[in-house]
């Protein structure tokens, strides 16, 4: 059985661009996707910036009104069951397939599986239930359920592409698509599937994002250039983003047979929960520290072999502190100093999308030979003492990358990637 999975295709619908080249360029140059943005016509709402995707008009609850920037063949029979973020996911998946040199027919023989992650569409749920309630539940959209509940991505994409392998969804908030990648690696390691498609997507709209306002989880800054400041003393919450990211994972044997271009290999993963709080991190990052330890053990690496850590750090006071302490315990305490960055300073936080999006960033970093920086980090929090947090990206290819994600309920997941060259 293989120990690793090769990342052979990437697809992006993101605030940094809708193709790999634009995204890689943004990560190298520090270009931000965060702009002044309103999600609801109410100036009293303390959310002034966000990181939207461009080219898609999906803010109507009626799929017949939606438009997108490419000539993708998205038939009505598929579109009717999608949520807005399903449209992003479909486009990212088409892009990832083309990138991997695959067509839809390559996914249909049972050797390909599909793992997806999103929170569903609160926007469509709200609309559909409001409509149904207005008629006292006497009528309603027959696609209300499959277009809006968590699972909508796997329901629709599996049916559209006629995928007959393992298909399921993951719901662990901000670790969802990182969990999906970890379990996708296991599917390939166990020989159950030769290829896994992993999808993360979220919507950037009032119904998905504004419920975070009462949690005091969002940045109230009106300055797009500094609102998202992971590890900075001035950080005050996360900036929201939406979009989709897709990764194609293949067994090394399949990738070799196809002579596929390999961005990086996924060689290990680990998870550990905090067992502490429903919504905040363990104060010392205990679960994340254990997740990193387990991931390193799974990858048969020592902490000193990690060149780059792509941090989860969302720019919240409590979460970044917990991760900094976990990183210090894992690396600094043993005398190691990997480069660390959180690209959320450029993208904001994509919730269920973030793990897939940022692992795809890591794959680009490994493939193109650079290490993303922390362009919005002006005054590092003293809690980060000893951590190597460069502002600018580095022209350095990380051989081994550790990718962290943390989510509600104290879930923590870490992945380990190895450069393919």
């Amino acid at each position, binding site marked *: 059985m293989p120990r690793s999975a090769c990342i052979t295709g990437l697809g992006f619908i993101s605030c940094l661009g809708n193709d790999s080249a634009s995204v890689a360029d943004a990560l190298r140059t520090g270009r931000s996707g965060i702009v002044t943005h309103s999600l609801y016509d109410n100036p009293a709402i303390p959310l002034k910036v966000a990181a939207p995707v461009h080219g898609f008009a999906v803010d109507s609850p009626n799929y017949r009104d939606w438009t997108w920037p490419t000539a993708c063949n998205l038939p009505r*029979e598929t579109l009717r069951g999608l949520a807005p973020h399903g449209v992003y996911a479909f486009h990212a998946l088409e892009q990832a397939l083309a990138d991997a040199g695959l067509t839809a027919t390559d996914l249909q023989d049972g050797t390909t599986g599909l793992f997806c992650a999103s929170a569903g569409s609160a926007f469509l749920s709200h*609309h559909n239930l409001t409509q149904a309630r207005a008629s006292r539940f006497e*009528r309603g959209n027959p696609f209300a359920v499959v277009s809006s509940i968590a699972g909508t991505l796997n329901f629709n994409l599996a049916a559209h592409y006629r995928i007959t392998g393992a298909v399921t969804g993951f719901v662990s908030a901000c670790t969802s698509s990182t969990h999906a990648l970890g379990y996708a690696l296991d599917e390939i390691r166990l020989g159950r599937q030769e290829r896994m498609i992993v999808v993360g997507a979220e919507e950037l709209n009032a119904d998905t994002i504004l419920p975070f306002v009462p949690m005091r989880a969002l940045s109230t800054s009106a300055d797009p250039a500094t609102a998202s400041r992971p590890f900075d003393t001035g950080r005050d919450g996360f900036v929201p983003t939406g979009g989709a990211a897709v990764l194609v994972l293949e067994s090394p044997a399949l990738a070799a047979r196809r002579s596929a271009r390999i961005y990086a290999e996924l060689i290990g993963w680990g998870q550990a929960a905090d067992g502490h709080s429903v919504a905040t991190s363990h104060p010392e990052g205990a679960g994340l520290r254990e997740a990193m330890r387990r991931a390193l053990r799974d990858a048969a690496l020592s902490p000193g072999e990690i060149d780059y850590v792509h941090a989860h750090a969302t720019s919240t006071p409590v979460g970044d502190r917990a991760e900094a302490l976990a990183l210090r315990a894992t690396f600094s305490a043993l005398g190691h100093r990997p480069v660390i960055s959180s690209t959320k300073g450029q993208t904001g936080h994509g919730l269920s999308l973030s793990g897939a999006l940022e692992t795809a960033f890591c794959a680009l970093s490994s493939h193109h030979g650079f290490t993303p920086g922390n362009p919005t980090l002006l005054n590092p929090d003293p809690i980060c003492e000893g951590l190597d947090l460069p502002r600018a990206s580095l022209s350095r290819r990380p051989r081994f990358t550790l990718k962290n994600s943390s989510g509600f309920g104290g879930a923590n997941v870490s992945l380990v990637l190895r450069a393919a060259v």
Partner: protein
Amino acid sequence: MCTVSPLNSFPSAIREAHARWLSDRDPHALATVVIAIVAFHLPPNIRAQYSENLPETSRLVEDLGFDSLVLAEIIFFIEDLYQVSISNDDLRRIHTVADLRAFVLSKIGPARPSA
């Protein structure tokens, strides 16, 4: 609640026909809209055959290839557009495009008598 018309993305001729029905109760305008709704939902393999005219005698399931999900979509579209409720018993009596047009007409109110 969002009040975007389900006809929002339809050709202007169809939206104008709907407006004509609302203002004049013109039954021909209603028929135009109902047929456009049916045509919009045609399966891709059937759509090409009926690019111009959709015969009113066409049977929804046997001729046009609608499955139960598409029938549910069409019914909801009509319910949403005309703010009516259509029961499963109603649905069982609708077999053709003409049945659907006649049913909608009877459900949403009589046409204005011609002068």
